[in-house]
């Protein structure tokens, strides 16, 4: 890739750009911030005033070279502490793709941030310090990527410069990862890249020091990962978000169901069932501001008109008549607890699933997971912040759902503490 093409938006090529969201996982000091800084810097996504600010700050901190990590370490509190404290989002683009990076910290108490960043990601970059190889925490990072259903995993073995860019180091770590981690977390699109975030090898530019590595650089990989199958294109799912009823003479009888398609490809004429009513009807029209569509697919926001006049409200689900979702009030799920106030067995919470609001009670904690060893610990009555466990809950009204592994939209939910209104858990339905 030449330097000129990377910022070349002058053609109308951008009309065909795709969007890729990725997250980074790694332990403290593995080089996450440096890597993101390097990606932004080498892809010419940084501006002069940003560069100047970082140069000034680098000098102030007594750093010998440009401290790339400073580009991402945003808020004042964390600049003072020198660590990343929350999820921060970064943006850059090449002529092929626009990228959204969820920059999440690696310290143990921040599992919740990693889960947050992973929830919307197409790809995860798992960083391993070449000097340490696969360590306990590598399991945690891989597990979270797996649990959150991230379709593509890129393992970057970083700091290769400190080990003379040796191929045997890379091969050993790759073999260890395949033998121990990939074995327990199967089914992913998995790649390995040896890099030096600090020196820039194989991040944007191919390394001069590792000619034994013949595959793509990290950026090339991110630019070419196929993402068209990342959404569930099979099961037709349309959670009703908002009812559009214009109060004008022209649209007197218009009653549109607005929402974002969560699964499947929809067409006018398709037979659907509306939940919870259980009534069968057909899609009359898929409406948009730019006119009706012949087909629509995830993650498009559209407005659906139905053949029959049915009483439908926000929180209902329109699903393809051929492949119905599961329905019920008894839900098995994995949760990550995100609040300092622990989850209590028999505790009651508000629950948000797609556009549906219900209440629930936690009636069983099957086990808590030691996410560094993946060992299941039974017999617990609470779940603390940053813990992940398998639970069972009962809802006041039924949900219409799919397993998370089938559909990340209709399989996910959050719990809310009704006393504080805080979001306290992320749930992945089994």
């Amino acid at each position, binding site marked *: 890739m030449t330097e000129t093409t990377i*910022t*070349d*938006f*002058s053609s109308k090529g*951008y*009309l*065909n*750009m*795709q*969007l890729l969201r990725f997250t980074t996982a790694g332990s403290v000091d593995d080089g996450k911030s440096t890597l993101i800084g390097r990606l932004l810097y080498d892809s010419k996504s940084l*501006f*002069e*005033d940003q560069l100047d*600010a970082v140069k000034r700050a680098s000098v102030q901190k007594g750093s010998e070279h440009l401290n790339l990590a400073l580009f991402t370490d*945003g*808020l*004042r*509190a964390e600049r003072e502490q020198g660590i990343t*404290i*929350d*999820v*921060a*989002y*970064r*943006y850059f683009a090449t002529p092929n*793709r*626009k990228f*959204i990076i969820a920059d999440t910290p690696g310290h143990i108490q921040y599992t919740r941030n990693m889960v*947050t960043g992973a929830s*919307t990601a197409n790809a995860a970059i798992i960083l391993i310090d070449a000097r340490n190889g696969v360590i306990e925490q590598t399991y945690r990072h891989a597990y979270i990527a797996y649990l959150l259903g991230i379709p593509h995993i890129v393992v970057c073995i970083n700091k290769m410069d400190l080990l003379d860019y040796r191929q045997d180091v890379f091969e050993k770590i790759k073999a260890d990862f395949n033998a121990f981690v990939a074995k327990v977390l199967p089914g992913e699109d998995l790649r390995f890249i040896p890099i030096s975030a600090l020196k820039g090898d194989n991040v944007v530019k191919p390394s001069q020091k590792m000619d034994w590595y013949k595959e793509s650089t990290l950026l090339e990989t991110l630019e070419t990962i196929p*993402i*068209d199958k990342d*959404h569930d*294109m099979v099961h037709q799912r349309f959670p009703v*978000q*908002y009812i559009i009823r*214009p*109060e*004008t003479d022209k*649209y007197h009888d218009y009653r549109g169901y*607005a*929402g*974002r398609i969560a699964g499947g*490809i929809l067409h006018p004429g398709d037979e659907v069932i509306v939940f919870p009513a259980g009534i069968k009807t057909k899609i009359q029209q898929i409406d*948009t*501001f730019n006119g009706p569509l012949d087909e629509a697919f995830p*993650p*498009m*926001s559209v*407005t659906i008109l139905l053949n029959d006049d049915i009483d439908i409200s926000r929180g209902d689900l329109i699903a393809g008549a051929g492949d119905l979702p599961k329905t019920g009030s008894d839900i098995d799920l994995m949760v990550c607890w995100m609040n300092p106030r622990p989850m209590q067995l028999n505790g009651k919470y508000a629950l*948000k699933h*797609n556009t549906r609001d219900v209440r629930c009670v936690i009636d069983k904690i099957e086990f808590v997971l030691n996410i560094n060893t993946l060992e299941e610990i039974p017999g617990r009555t609470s779940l603390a912040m940053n813990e992940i466990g398998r639970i069972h809950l009962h809802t006041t009204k039924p949900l219409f759902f799919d397993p998370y592994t089938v559909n*990340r*939209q209709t399989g*996910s939910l*959050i719990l*809310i503490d009704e006393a504080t*209104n805080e*979001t306290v858990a*992320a749930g992945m339905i089994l």
Partner: protein
Amino acid sequence: MKDYNLTHLRELESEASYVLREVAAQFERPALLFSGGKDSIVLVHLSRKAFHPASIPFPLVHIDTGHNFEEAIIFRNKLVKKFNARLVVGSVQESIDNGRVVEEKGINASRNVLQTVTLLDTIEKYKFDAAIGGGRRDEEKARAKERFFSHRDEFGQWDPKNQRPELWNIFNGKKRMGEHFRVFPISNWTEMDIWQYILQENIELPSLYFTHEREVFFRDGVWLAKAPFMAMKPTEKAEKLRVRCRTVGDISCTGLVLSTADNLEDIIREIAATRVTERGGRYDDKRSEAAMEDRKKEGYF
């Protein structure tokens, strides 16, 4: 095989549409903060699309510093009429007259900071429970951590260290009496996305964004517009140059760039080649490196 990928602009649009519909569904009295700048003009366009064929189900709120570019106000009034929208104006001048705020003095005086009080007063007066803003995470470091649904306490304050986690696209807008939310539907858009989208959708902008001749002067690396209320140092000289705005806000803090771009394609080319961030031209951010974070905590946009 057919290609079922959305372009990045279509995906961003769909995401914004989803967020706007969530606001309409989850809140009783939402409002759209309309600055007159390109980001809020894009928000209005997105809102029209999201609720079509119904009209936009919330009013536009303009916090007026009184120090406006005339073109921006003319444009605002035209837009409100054309889209049959409802306009609410919160006046900084009124806040000054009522003694709610004290006008800054001196050469760098700006009403930009005073806006926060007027904004919070307006939110309280109309009992708005959600204020939709055009903030983007790429604009500034402190914004990079904003949520789509950003909780504000009963004093309108933001606590960046204690934010609700935001997972998938499930937005938690639950709040207590007196609290409100700031909502940022175009969080994930960059400046380039905005311009590309404006081109793709053929969205009308105020003429200020295109090249025009204007009396300007140079201060601390930024071109500022000459105006009756803009104090100038004796050493500063106004000259007539061809400029355009990269952002449009209160005159006192809107930096202008030297440019001959008179159409969207040229602006996009110019931005692709520009090596300074949009906010680099904002005089208000220069006060300190953490300026934005401090203002945001207090309730700024």
